[in-house]
């Protein structure tokens, strides 16, 4: 669809996670991967990757999202090509992508509630990844050394985003979703251990783990984590109707998450599940304020 003469201007919503690189000085950047609905571009560090996303692509938090579907786009680049990123633009041979808006990628927010085992049971059986992430979370909560458990996961498994990384994302998101001082401490410790280890995995996966360490993930994953961790409890007056609405919302969202990648969605949920089981042993913290009380 791109014009034969010159390149076409297309607006994009830019994630704040990559906005700095897009706004910076124009620099030649290497194309890492090209798919029907997206293009991955390195941003100068191993764990910094930008995803150029068609409207029908999975909404990765590291993305420049276009309003057009992939059927109306032609990337015209191959892996290994260089494209220019900067000054608010991505210049491809047949396409010039202009940053037209700062996007607001979905992000997990902490709710002042301790999850229960029953919450974790809403998710599919996590298998061995669930065991590994359960132990990882228990270790983190106990303040014990994490190096072995983390190194066992980073870059482990097959795929562009290895299973271990996906599970690790799940743990990071689960910890970020629980507003409890112990969870916050565990998250900080885990982050400190994970970030230096990201050289062991693919760039794309490293960038997504980095995003998850700040609570960012694709919208359906955020929605599912929120529906799993938050339901009911923090509002005691919550009506049946809402609980029902949540439950009817749950099935389709779960299905969509499981459909992500070859096994990425399932692996990520294994991490969420393992972490939630570990978090379920926490006592509600006496200083955990009810929602909104800190405003008074």
């Amino acid at each position: 669809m791109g014009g034969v003469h010159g390149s076409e201007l297309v607006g994009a919503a830019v994630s704040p996670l990559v906005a700095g690189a897009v706004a910076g000085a124009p620099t030649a950047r290497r194309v890492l991967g090209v798919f029907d609905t997206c293009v991955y571009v390195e941003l100068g560090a191993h764990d910094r990757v930008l995803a150029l996303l068609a409207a029908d692509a999975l909404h990765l938090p590291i993305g420049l999202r276009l309003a057009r579907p992939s059927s109306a786009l032609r990337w015209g680049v191959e892996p290994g090509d260089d494209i220019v990123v900067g000054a608010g633009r991505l210049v491809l041979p047949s396409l010039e992508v202009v940053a037209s808006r700062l996007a607001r990628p979905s992000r997990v927010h902490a709710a002042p509630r301790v999850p229960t085992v029953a919450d974790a049971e809403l998710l599919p059986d996590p298998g061995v990844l669930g065991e590994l992430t359960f132990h990882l979370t228990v270790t983190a909560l106990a303040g014990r050394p994490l190096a072995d458990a983390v190194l066992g996961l980073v870059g482990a498994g097959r795929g562009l985003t290895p299973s271990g990384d996906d599970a690790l994302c799940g743990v990071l998101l689960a910890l970020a979703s629980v507003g409890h001082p112990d969870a916050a401490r565990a998250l900080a410790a885990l982050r400190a251990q994970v970030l230096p280890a990201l050289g062991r995995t693919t760039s794309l996966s490293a960038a997504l783990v980095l995003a998850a360490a700040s609570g960012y993930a694709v919208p359906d994953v955020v929605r599912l984590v929120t529906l799993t961790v938050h339901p009911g409890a923090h509002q005691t007056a919550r009506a049946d109707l809402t609980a029902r609405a949540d439950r009817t919302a749950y099935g389709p969202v779960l299905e969509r998450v499981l459909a992500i990648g070859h096994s990425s969605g399932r692996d990520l949920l294994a991490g969420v599940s393992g972490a939630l089981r570990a978090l379920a042993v926490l006592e509600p913290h006496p200083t955990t304020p009810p929602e909104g009380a800190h405003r008074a």
Partner: protein
Amino acid sequence: MPDHVERRTGSYVDSVSLMQVSRAAAGAPGVDAAQVAMATELNLDVIRGMGFDVPEGSPNDLLVAVRGSDEGIAAALAVVAEELTRRRGATGGLGAGLGAAPAPRTTAAAITAVGADLALVSVPGAHAVAEALDAITAGVSVMVFSDNVPVEDEVALKDAAARAGVLVMGPDCGTAVVGGVALGFANVVQPGSVGIVAASGTGAQQVMALLDAAGVGVSHCLGVGGRDLSSAVGGRSTRQALGALAADPVTERIVVVSKPPAPEVLAELESYAAGLGKPVQWATLGAGRPDLTAAVEALLAAAGTGVGADDGAGDGPGAQRVWPEWAGASSDEIGEGSLRGLFCGGTLADEAMLIAAEYLGDVRSNIPLRPNLALGPGLRDSGHVVIDFGDDSMTQGRAHPMIDPSLRLERIAVEAADPTCGVLLLDLVLGHGAHPDPAPELAAAITAARETAAAAGRDLPVVVSLTGTSGDPPGLERSAETLADAGATVLLSNADATRHAIHLLGRRTWPLESGTGGTAYGSGDARTAVGTDAAPRSHPQPPPQSREQFVGVQTLLSSEIVVATAGAGLFADSLRAQAVSVSEVDWQPPMPGTERDLAVVLADDRRAAANAEALRRMTAAGADLVDVRPARDALGLEVGTFLHAGPPIEFARASGPLKGALMGAMLLEGLADTAEEAEAKLEKGDGITLEPCHHRDAVGPMAGVISPSMWVYELRDEVHDNTSWCSLNEGLGKVLRYGAYGPEVIERLRWMNAVLGPILQQAVRARVDASGPVDVKAIIAQMLQMGDEGHNRNRAGSLMLLRELLPTMITADASSTDIAEAVRFSGANEHFFLNLGMPACKLSTLAAHGIPGSSVVTTMARNGTDFGIRVSGTGDAWFTGPANTPEGLFLGSYGPDDANPDIGDSAITETAGIGGFAMAAAPAIVKFVGGDVPFALRATQTMYAITVGEHTAHQVPILEFRGTPTGIDVTAVVRTGILPQINTGMAGRVAGTGQVGAGLVTPPAECFTAALAALAEATHG
């Protein structure tokens, strides 16, 4: 030279686009005047007022009126054609390829197409409810830009939204920002933690601009519509929006912006807001209440954020704030005379009047604070005047002044020459949706005005209240400097601008008196500390609702949005420019005169479930061939009773083929010896009863005449315990069902009664005994995968049926000659199966009949004169209209003049979702009925727009085994104007002729509008 005036039917274009087309056409060389508009009463007045002579027609026509030289008219028409094509291209886009789905025709379809989580409706107000309800039903929040929506519809919409956990922004909502995306008129704001609930568009923009200048970001700005805080609406959407923002983790404080609200509604909302756990600030204008600037200052003080303060120490409540200001040449002049405020923003005008009234006394206006201050028709007065050019009364037939400023620019020139004008106060609003760079034009008008005044020896100070942010496309600074260069004093705060203007009249208002800022509030958080004092509850209450029930709104607020738009194309364009995924509805007005009925029926909360149940039953219904019997036994037909196709009709009104078939049946039954005698007896009617097949749950193809001695197939739906019947097929050519009654026709019928019927009976009974009944439904499912559509192409179905029956036919107790002839006859007839497919479809639709509230069509049938439909929710009533004549291909030397209007019960196939609805499964059909292969694919794709769902068993391979479109929804037909596509045979017009061809036909529209009216009536009851 004569004017060029033409009406174009079936081409709806939104009014904003048409204004732009009109302007382009009027600008063509040699053109004196040009107007391109939809033929509504209002537009007709405008066009007739321009002196054009306009022919009669439908309000849905597109009118093109041009005056000029011959070359000018030609040039204008070329411009119109080019502009319209360009605009249509935006919606048509990629949908042109073979088998591509057509553009969505309703908001529901557009939402489904892209998984939208917000709908934006800007269709004319009378039609907005239908589109908005689509969104609510789909669990999606909706912004309704349209105005002129009746208040009772607004209340109903908002109640439905509360039940669905979604938000209705509007009606008449022009401003919203969701997750950084501007919807309608909105500014580019930094992300942040302040959530805005806005019952006022420009009010919200002013608040956003002030917050932005203070370095405070906005999480979301949710519009609720200008009437939301009125007694009638009771703050329904405000409550919903407050709840959603309270649950939004990014939002930390909330500000509610409104024109003067109903006091009891405000009190109610204040007590609701007190329980939300987040501070809520009330920027609700009113006499004695703080202005918008003061409310923002209070919020900033409470949040501990200063504006323009050099040190953090002075940021407490009451600290003086300095909002951006750009001084122009006129800032020290003192005007002599009155205040003249010319505004584009209604709330800004309101605020200016409220402030001005404090210092100046009475201010006259077209939106007066009190009725006695209303301006007369010319909007002139020698005293203080504030005019809102964005008011509905000023925007009829033209764009909002934020897009097209011409009217206000003219008035500026008028004021310049008016010696009683002491100071000009103007607003200018930047941002999405507004004119892309409005400052230069306004600056030029200001310069000219000051020159005019100077020439008359007067000073004319000009003050501009400029609402915008540094992120807005033309740039706040640049716009302000352009205006200041023209001599105006420019202020970001509208309240400050108003006070400055009053100051320039020599009144003492500057600096801001602190008493005004604090009146109703005290400190910023005062409102959240309000106790649970019982608020007066005299106004109608919204339905009880859990305050956590915002699941749908939460989805909207927590991720990047995908939007479905219906109406003005500029909204979709603006969203695309912000890199938002958009699905645009190819919206057309509904059938004329149906707005109220649609609003009533669509709001019937039984409907969705009733239609889902109808579809479930239609797809669940079985169809087993269990017997073959004479009609006198099977249907209890007595001598002299004749069943026929279609809705009821008396012989005198019957068409040629139906008359011919009835005459043939008289001969067959021995009630007459000659055709003449048969006709005479039928005309007289003694001892003769005519009755629709449908009244006995039977169906008959074409004339559909069934007499007592004829044999019929008997089919059972064991799931719903229903039975249906249909006559045996006679083959093609000169046959009774096409109205032929010659000796060979009667002879064949006698043989069918004496030989074929009994052999088929034995065959079916033996088959039932040996291996159970023949599963006709399964054959239909299979034939669709073998190139049949089940109405006009039954080849595979007929062969499969023969395969089922042959083993027991050839072992029947009859002479081998008779068996051989029966087998040959059945095998030679390509439509052998049609007479089983039809009763199978009848069983499907019969199961769905009689569900209260359901708008699903359960019968479509024609008698050659009338087309009649029956609807699930309206019982046995027929809704009829004159049958259309099919268009298609003719046999031999026959031509269009030989064809009779549409006839037969066979449209039951389309009613059940096959036939014309399954054309994509049978591309070869186009060789028989006309059209081309893309047409066949498009026909099926288009029918999805008017059906409730898809069949589970009947599938179309080329559409990736998508289920056939099933369950025609009366409301969808009326809304889209898409009529069911029927494939049909054509009977000769003259009795006795037989078949003359086959083709395509649609029902008359009035069947559906009448059915809708009856559904609306049933809803009221």
